[in-house]
């Protein structure tokens, strides 16, 4: 299992075409990308550049027209062929973190995090144990029994990160995870994602427009007109940030 997860994300010549004939639009045009386990990579680009399309392809909710894509060492698309059970793939191999946490409002914190392993067939007790471990690691275990509406924005975002990590997926896709947060909290969330990437050997792609967090990435993929261009990031050190202290300081609701 460990060797598979080391494989991270590999994208080769991915194309995605919407529509047919004269109205066809090429959203992705032979895009290449690699993200290794334990690495947090930024994906930036203007609106309409293909970021969301790429994220949806990676998230196994739409299929690329051509190209090859490997997640966690497993080929999921290969020039028209796709893995049969995309739902199980999303459940077991991909974690999602969104701009808004999109937690399930009628479940408490523990059950929100424990839901993915339950869906994967694990027992309630084991799923909750895993959830509590992650909530402990993300310093929100004290809100384990709270309902989502009772949490601050920072707490909600950490719960959503815990949910993304709970099935120990080799890949996490984070879509604008810091957009609703101020600068200090945004940095705190990125620090958490970096720590989790290392701790759980997870490959993380962070799609962002947020200028303040871009300097924290060591590698950046800039996407423009359906193609990526790899750039070296500043990789600004985040060690000085006490993420949990920052996120616990003020209750800030997400937008």
């Amino acid at each position: 299992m460990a060797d598979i997860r080391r494989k991270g994300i590999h994208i080769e010549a991915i194309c995605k075409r919407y529509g047919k004939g004269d109205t066809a639009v090429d959203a992705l045009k032979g895009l290449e990308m690699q993200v290794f386990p334990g690495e947090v990579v930024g994906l930036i680009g203007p609106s309409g550049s293909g970021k969301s399309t790429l994220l949806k392809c990676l998230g196994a909710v739409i299929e690329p027209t051509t190209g090859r894509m490997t997640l966690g060492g497993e080929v999921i698309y290969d020039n028209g062929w796709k893995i049969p059970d995309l739902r199980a793939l999303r459940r077991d191999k991909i974690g999602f973190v969104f701009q808004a946490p999109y937690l399930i409002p009628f479940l408490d914190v523990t059950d929100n995090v424990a839901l993915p392993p339950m869906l994967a067939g694990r027992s309630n007790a084991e799923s909750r144990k895993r959830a509590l471990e992650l909530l402990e690691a993300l310093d929100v275990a004290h809100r384990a029994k709270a309902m989502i509406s009772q949490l601050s924005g920072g707490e909600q975002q950490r719960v959503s990160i815990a949910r993304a990590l709970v099935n120990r997926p080799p890949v996490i896709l984070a879509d604008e995870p810091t957009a609703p947060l101020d600068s200090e909290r945004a940095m705190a969330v990125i620090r958490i994602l970096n720590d989790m990437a290392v701790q759980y050997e997870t490959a993380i792609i962070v799609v962002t427009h947020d200028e303040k967090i871009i300097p924290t990435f060591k590698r950046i993929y800039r996407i423009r007109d359906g193609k990526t261009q790899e750039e070296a990031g500043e990789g600004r050190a985040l060690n000085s940030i006490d993420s949990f202290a920052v996120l616990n300081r003020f209750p800030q609701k997400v937008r």
Partner: protein
Amino acid sequence: MISLAGRDIQHAWGKFVFTGVGLGLLIGVTLTMAGVYRGMVDDAKALLDNSGADLWVVQQGTLGPYAESSSLYDDIYRSILGMPGVTRAANVTYLTMQVRHGGQDVRAMVVGVVCGGAGQPGQPGYLVSGRRITRTHYEAVADMASGFKLGDRIRIRRNLYSVVGLTRRMVSSSGDPMVFIPIKDAQEAQFLKDNDAIVQQRRRTAANPLFNRPGAPGLLDAVIASQSKNPYVNAVLVQIKPGLSPEEAAEPIRRWKRLQVYTREQMEEILVGKLIATSAKQIGMFLVILAIVSAAIIAFIIFTLTLGKIREIAVLKLIGTRNSTIAWMILQQALALGVIGFVVGKIAATIWAPFFPKYVLLVPEDAARGFMALMVICVFASLLAIRTALRVDPAEAIGG
């Protein structure tokens, strides 16, 4: 696996319960409508049971005495008593009218019965207080539902009657309480005219040269005397020997007396199948409409609740929730709404049924059938919401 539906209901229990209560009141109305029909059938059966008859002898070619008017001479019962298998026979009249009581009109079925004890055809089976009619005039036994009390004086046409006994559950097929009076008084009440009408009738008879002939001086008086009497009754109630088939006793009366005879089963068929058939269809239509309205409400509520969770459903699908799990969640909520609605409806119907002016009979079988129908309605009502939920694209959670 945790119950997603249960948690959702628990989270928004107020909204869910109040919606269920609203639906429950509608279901209560539905159950009550069914109870009204059952009450009508039960009233009809009670009418037959309380008559104490095995056979009803009525005018030939009629469905009397309840569904159609029937007229027989009041001495026919004597000849029927002589027929094979007949043990008792008694005249009876039925007249639905407004009875004056304390300045108010009470709708009642006035039954003319032959004086006698319990078991006599036409007599009420039992009394809850007072005594039976022992005098041949101006005494009455009334059903409690009429509101009369012992000693009350009630006016029927021009005469006053003393209530000497009270009975219970003696009603017409329309649910009107019965008032029993002596047969002679009842015969008079059926045809008794006011003084002006009597004067008019005598004048017209006297003016008719056929009845007022100089050569027949006693004829006019005889005709007027015959017009002042009512020798008719509506039916003869017959009891037969134990063990004898009703049809065996009925056939000779039909054949030799040239009269219509109905057995208990035939009379029940007339009352339930003909007399209250239109009302039953009316109620049936109401039930169908209420079922459609209930289905529409449940569908609307579940659909609205589902639309409010589109983003959550997209996230659930994105993180790998099976379609069947999501469909089951919606179906469970629809069924839970139905269960809440049914419980509230059953309680509401039980509480308000006794306040209805007519008898409302809530039978467990109807409740069970209603519950099953409601569950089926819930399943169908949730289909639209399930279809919508299953069409939600997990990509919606990612946005863009």
